[in-house]
Structure formats: C-alpha cells, structure tokens
C-alpha cells in the first residue's frame, strides 16, 4: 500500500518560494496566475494492508515528524 503525503505552508503563512515562482511565471508572460503555493510531496510504501489503519498511522507520522504543524498543513492520500 502506498501513501502520498502533501505538506504545504498554512493559508495565511507567507510562502517565499511560492511568491518567487509566481513572480517568475509572471515575468515569462503567464499572467493568469492568482497565487502560487509550493509544497512537498512524500511518498511512503507501507506494509499495512488496511486503508484505515494505514491512514491513521501516516497521520501520526505527519503530526510527529513529516509536517511542522506550527506553520504547515498536510493531507494524506492512501493509494493501493
């Protein structure tokens, strides 16, 4: 079973990377972009074979290590 974790800065926390990418896109003529947020994706290969158990476990991993919940939000998607 595979888990895909997306971690990104919380709404309202200014994202310096997103801002720079937005600026670059604008310079390249892509003017229709309203906002850019840059996050990271962590892909986990899991031993579990029950989706719910896997999700609970990965959420625990996010709270403990994968995300800094002071500034970051995350979401977990389990794909088998």
């Amino acid at each position, binding site marked *: 079973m595979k888990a895909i974790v997306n971690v990104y800065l919380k709404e309202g*926390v200014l994202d*310096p990377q997103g801002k720079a990418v937005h600026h670059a896109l604008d310079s390249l003529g892509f003017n229709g972009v309203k906002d850019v947020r840059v996050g990271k994706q962590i892909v986990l290969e899991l031993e579990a074979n029950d989706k719910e158990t896997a999700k609970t476990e990965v959420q625990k991993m996010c709270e403990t*290590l994968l995300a800094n919940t002071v500034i970051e939000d995350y979401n977990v998607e389990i794909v088998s």
Partner: protein
Amino acid sequence: MNVTVLQFPGTNCEFDTQYAFKRLNQNVTILWHEETALPENTDLVVVPGGFSYGDYLRSGAIARFSPVMQAVKAFAEKGGYVLGICNGFQILLESHLLPGAMKRNENLHFVSKHHWLKVENRDNRFLSKCEVGELLNIPIAHAEGNYFIEEEGLKALWDNGQVLLTYCDSAGNPANPNGSVDNIAGICNKGRNVFGLMPHPERAMEEILGSADGVKMLEGLCS
C-alpha cells in the same frame, strides 16, 4: 562552568563554539548526538550551528529526535540553561523548547554577512552584560532564518520580554535580512533558561576578525 556542546551529523560550528567558550575560560565538552545523557556536571548546553542531517525535511526536524535531545529536553525542563545558535535555534524550535517556526528566507538566498542587532531585553542571563538598545555587530549565515509565530504568540513574546534581539542597521533602525516577523533575531522561553538566535556570537570573539561583540553575549551565560 561546564559547557556541553552538541554534535550532530552535519554540525559544523561545534569547534568555533568550543573555542569561544574556552576563550572565556570555561570547560567545554563536545557531545555526540547518540549519547543518551549529558555529562553530570553540565551547567550550559549549546546546540551549535551547521546543517544537522543535511537540513533534510526541515532544518532541525530530524535532529530533534536524536537521543541526546531527549536529555536536553529534560535538562531544560528542570531549569538548565540551553543556548541554540542558528541551526541550534532551529532544532530548539522543532523540539518545542522555544515557540514558533522557521521558514525559508524571504528572498530565498543564503545570507552570509555581518549584521547589526539591537538588544531588546537584558532581563535574562544571556544578555545580562548588554544594555537595552545597545547595538551588536554579529555575523549571520543562514537560508532559513525567517522566524514565524502567529499573532497571539508574537504578542505574548513581546509582553513577556521574550524577544531578545532584533535585526537593525548601524544606526539602530529596523532592517531585515530574512523576512522574520517583527525583525526578530533571537528569543528565549518563558522560563528565561532556553535561548535561541540565528546570528553567531561565537564568530564575533576577536576585533581582528571583524567584531568582538559576541564576547559580552556569551559572557553573560558564564556569570
């Protein structure tokens, strides 16, 4: 005084830190991160600068779980003095020994230069040898020094006198090299025994190297 300087894979300021405290006539032990206990006579723990675990995931995120950090947490909770410099500050934030978090510098650059700091509070051991409003010339060298804390937490920091240092120019006017909220360069915890700052006082110990302003900062901790 006995100073214990931590060493993680990727730490690179442990010897500068050792040199700085030896110059101040203190005993210094460098302690590998796999140790589960601090030397018994430790009076001060310094978490030095560098790139622990290659800054992977987030600066300080992995070092936080090192065996030695559990001992440091217990030490701090009992009132022991802890100083985190640069990556050490990031580790203390990730460990929740200090409030807030670090983001990438606003301009996304690694900033490495001397910078002026203003002393905001001296009611703590670290800056007890400095004066409020005093300007200090200290090197900074980081890519993730953009300190962030939500509004309520920020207010609490100011109200409790936990904001120790802010970035400024040579005339004392606010100046910000990384985007940190309220130009914050250094803070302490509520108990005033855990200190964290992005600038490197251990690199400002001799006039011939550009500044000796780090001496009076570190001396405070030795008194």
